[in-house]
């Protein structure tokens, strides 16, 4: 091995089940030569895994543990939500740091297990919350920390989406629908801003409310409409619409919006607002295309930095755990019809 090769980090990709893996892989490849070496791809879906390995110019491994034994520094886990635990656990046991797609796990117990496992092994565990790294969010955080809007009192937020299809509507793989998929980003951003935990959650949840879901699940059911009310320690109140309510005909996939009401002002963030409008005969549609900075770059940069210098990621496994606790509380609240206390593990 040459000097330069020794210097580069060997990172493996465990599954491309979640489409965000493509983004992370692309960014790893755009890092300066010698920074990252994509050591291999493993995927339960061998066809998909082989295709991705070819595209990334790396090897496909049919056995996860073989890949994990290939002198790795880090692994990116983008399997189905319910497989995160097993894949990340295997990585920890092999001594490999992990960047895990959100939600970290589908239960807080599983998340706690991972957090403890990586802590004991002194390995970095980072939850992929890319929104923290978006330019507009970083500016908002700067100004918020400078006290521009004073102390936060309340937030009105949304993370709408189009029903993503595939395994996302099968709770065996996803652990749940829209609430599982779209609660954690906003919860993480609000936790990041307030440095407080969510104490109480009230959730109203609808199942198979939208055409795209009905079409996808047939007689099975999955949550696709939800409004959450969150109360933080210290009294901040917030609401979040995390529904998969965007029809196929809508001009964009969805949104992430925060309206923050402070003692001195109001901040409104529309994270995907940097966009152009495109009307094309080819597609017969009018669509919006984002041109803002890619958020995935920040996630990859942070993970690579932590693998290199051994520091703790700015977005930790514990952040993933706390977000999952809120998801759990939301489902519990929806079931009992009352606000419930978040149980912290």
């Amino acid at each position, binding site marked *: 091995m040459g000097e330069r090769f020794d210097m580069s980090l060997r990172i493996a990709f465990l599954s491309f089940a979640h489409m965000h893996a493509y983004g992370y892989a692309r960014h790893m490849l755009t890092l300066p030569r010698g920074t990252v070496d994509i050591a291999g791809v493993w995927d339960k879906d061998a066809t998909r895994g082989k295709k991705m390995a070819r595209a990334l110019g790396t090897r496909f491994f049919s056995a996860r543990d073989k890949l994990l034994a290939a002198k790795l520094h880090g692994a990116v886990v983008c399997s189905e939500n319910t497989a995160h635990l097993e894949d990340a656990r295997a990585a920890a046991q092999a001594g490999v740091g992990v960047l895990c797609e959100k939600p970290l796990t589908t239960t807080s117990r599983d998340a706690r297990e991972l957090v403890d496992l990586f802590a004991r092994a002194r390995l970095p565990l980072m939850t992929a919350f890319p929104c923290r790294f978006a330019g507009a969010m970083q500016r908002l955080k700067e100004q918020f920390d400078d006290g521009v809007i004073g102390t936060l*009192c*309340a937030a*009105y937020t949304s993370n*709408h989406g189009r029903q993503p299809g595939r395994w996302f509507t099968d709770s065996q793989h996803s652990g749940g629908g829209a609430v599982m998929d779209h609660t954690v980003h906003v919860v993480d951003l609000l936790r990041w801003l307030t440095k407080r935990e969510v104490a109480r959650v*009230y959730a*109203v949840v*609808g199942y198979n*409310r*939208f*055409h795209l879901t*009905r079409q996808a699940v047939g007689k099975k059911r999955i949550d696709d*409409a*939800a*409004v959450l*009310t969150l*109360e933080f320690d210290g*009294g901040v*109140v*917030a*609401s979040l*619409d995390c*529904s998969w*309510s*965007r*029809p196929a*005909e*809508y001009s964009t996939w969805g949104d992430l919006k925060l*309206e923050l*009401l402070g*003692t001195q*002002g*109001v901040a409104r963030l529309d994270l995907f607002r940097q966009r152009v409008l495109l009307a094309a005969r080819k597609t017969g549609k009018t669509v919006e295309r984002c041109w803002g900075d890619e958020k995935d770059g920040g996630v990859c940069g942070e993970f690579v930095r932590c693998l290199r210098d051994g520091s703790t990621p700015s977005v930790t496994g514990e952040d993933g755990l706390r977000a999952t606790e809120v998801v759990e509380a939301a489902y519990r609240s929806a079931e009992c*019809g*009352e*606000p419930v206390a978040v149980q912290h593990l």
Partner: protein
Amino acid sequence: MSPQACPARGIALNPAASQVRIGILGAGKIGATHSSAYAKMPGVKVVGAWDADVQRAQKLAAQHGAQVFERRADLLRAVDVVDICLPTMFHRENVLAAAAAGKPVICEKPLARTVADCDAVIAACAKAKVPLLVGHVVRFFPEYSALRESILKGDIGEPAVVHMRRVVCAPGGPGAWYWDFEKSGGCVFDTAIHDLDWLLWTFGRPQQVYGVGLRDAAKLQDFGLLTLTWANGLIAHLESSWCHDSFSTSFEAAGSDGLIEFDTDDSVPLKVARIGGQGGGGKVIPESPLAKSPYQVELEHFLEVIGGRAKPVVTAEEAREAVALANACLDAVAARQVVVLPRAKRVQRAKTRKQVQLGAEHPA
């Protein structure tokens, strides 16, 4: 609107004169808005104004060539229709006085602070056989009626999640009646009631409500987030605020087969800017003009109803229902618990259907 009066059903308005004489009780912001709307209506004239603050009444009267009345009773005698534009806590007393004088009443929303007060004024007006029309003006905003018609036509399939946002600046300064929450009910009662009324009008009574809020009169801060659910699974979420920097409303309704949305901030067809010279600093005046303001459409409709030529788009009973719902929201916020509402009678639905057609006749 039909130019022909229907005296058999309607109230004979000042038969001697060709004018409908309006008396304004309360010369504040809404009193001024209504007076300006009346000024544009042929055959209608604001002839009298009364306000505890005489100077304010004088200013309004001077603007419209009306007379200032020091005694309410004198005004009630001199007018055909009484328009109550006073703070909520004075509605009961003044509606009762107008009814006792046998005068048709237009009353600003909310009809009253409590359901009991609503019942009292509804009973008094029924007994006196005078119409009682409540200013739920959002029903006359073209974007809100368009949204409703679109939903009822089935454009978005079954509605699933509806958002209604209504944020305004702090109304009045410290010490203003708005900030006495017992009297005004705060933003959830006074401001969100527009959206609650729209929701009742469109979907009927919800099954339950939940909400969180913040209020601090000293800091001029009042804010609420409400979540309403219906038996059919519909979810509505409302943001209500008295602590924003400017007025803004928006709505979004996502349904099984489509989505419809609106935002005042995106609906500004005209922006005129005064150039501020080097480095900018000019002032931009945004406008969204309509041939007739929703207030004028509303008040014209109310006069048609009073004249017996139209059925009300909004009834006093519906205004009472909005008061009940807004109070349930306040209860939920205070108790930090879900409040379950009693089931509505079936009649309401049929009524709502009929009014769709009525609403459609309204000029945009």
